[in-house]
């Protein structure tokens, strides 16, 4: 068991560490096709630094239907990246591991320096923005969904990370300080 912010013992109540729990609930309650987006604040017992905070926000997406393929996932994410970061944005998927998806991938977008190399992308030309994958058939079965008939994908991203990239914010802590001089800049 990982350490996190527990509120009560027996039954153990805690502040959620990710929004994936929402998806478990949806899959248990609803019948496919399912298409949801669930934003939320999450809490982790982490050291606070310029790059990470113990409070942050996630947005998770879930799509379950017949004939959902990895190609659909790629197209959805490409659409999102172009809408958020501009028409010329490209995406790159790197194989990765997440407990609830198989296969899983991490998604990078092209950096605004266009591959020239800058501090932001640490000279790689790519910026990681989200994690995603095809939902593990076991997860579907556990939630009472026929994994032979239905497939689906899920993705999740950190809102702060995208806000920092988008607005050029160097320190995540600025987002939680409630400094009016900072907040005024986003009118």
């Amino acid at each position, binding site marked *: 068991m990982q350490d996190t912010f527990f509120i009560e013992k027996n039954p153990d109540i805690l502040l959620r560490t990710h929004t994936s*729990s929402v998806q478990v609930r949806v899959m248990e309650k609803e019948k496919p096709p399912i298409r949801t*987006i669930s934003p939320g*604040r999450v809490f982790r017992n982490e050291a606070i630094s310029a790059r990470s905070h113990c409070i942050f926000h996630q947005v998770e997406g879930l799509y379950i239907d017949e004939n959902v393929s990895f190609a659909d996932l790629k197209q959805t994410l490409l659409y999102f990246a172009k809408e958020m970061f501009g028409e010329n944005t490209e995406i790159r998927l790197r194989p990765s591991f997440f407990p609830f998806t198989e296969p899983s991938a991490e998604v990078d977008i092209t950096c605004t320096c266009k591959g020239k190399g800058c501090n932001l992308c640490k000279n790689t030309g790519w910026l990681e923005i989200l994690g995603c994958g095809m939902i593990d058939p076991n997860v579907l079965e556990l939630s009472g969904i026929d994994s032979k008939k239905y497939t689906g994908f899920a993705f999740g991203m950190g809102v702060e990370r995208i806000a920092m990239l988008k607005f050029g914010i160097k320190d995540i802590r600025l987002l939680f300080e409630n400094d009016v001089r900072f907040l005024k800049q986003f009118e």
Partner: protein
Amino acid sequence: MIEKIEKYIVEVSNLVANTKEEAENLRIKYIGRNGILNDLFDEFKTVPNEQKRSVGQAINTLKNNIQEKIDELISSTKKLNLEIKIDVTLPGDSLKLGSRHPVNIIKNRIVRYFHILVFLFLKVQKLKTTGMFFRH
């Protein structure tokens, strides 16, 4: 001399001023460099020693009364001016609303982009039991 001072005390209590300029003129008339009060102080030097005490007290009362009255007049004319300046038929100053938090701006945008793809918006409680997180 005491009678003269008492006459001034009565006069001062009946002073009126409708504008700031009028109040200012009264101030100059009474407490200005060549004002009535200074004249009285000059005259005071000629008062015989036995009378100095009572005349001095009277002058001080007059001085305080004048100062109070003039202050009162100046502040009341200021109020008057302010009231005139407000045109109640003008539209009011709107209250400035705050701005959205950058995190919310981005969150709303993300939700909007996926809403176009008919992803439905879901909101769920922040407290969970461990079963929902560490189930294998």
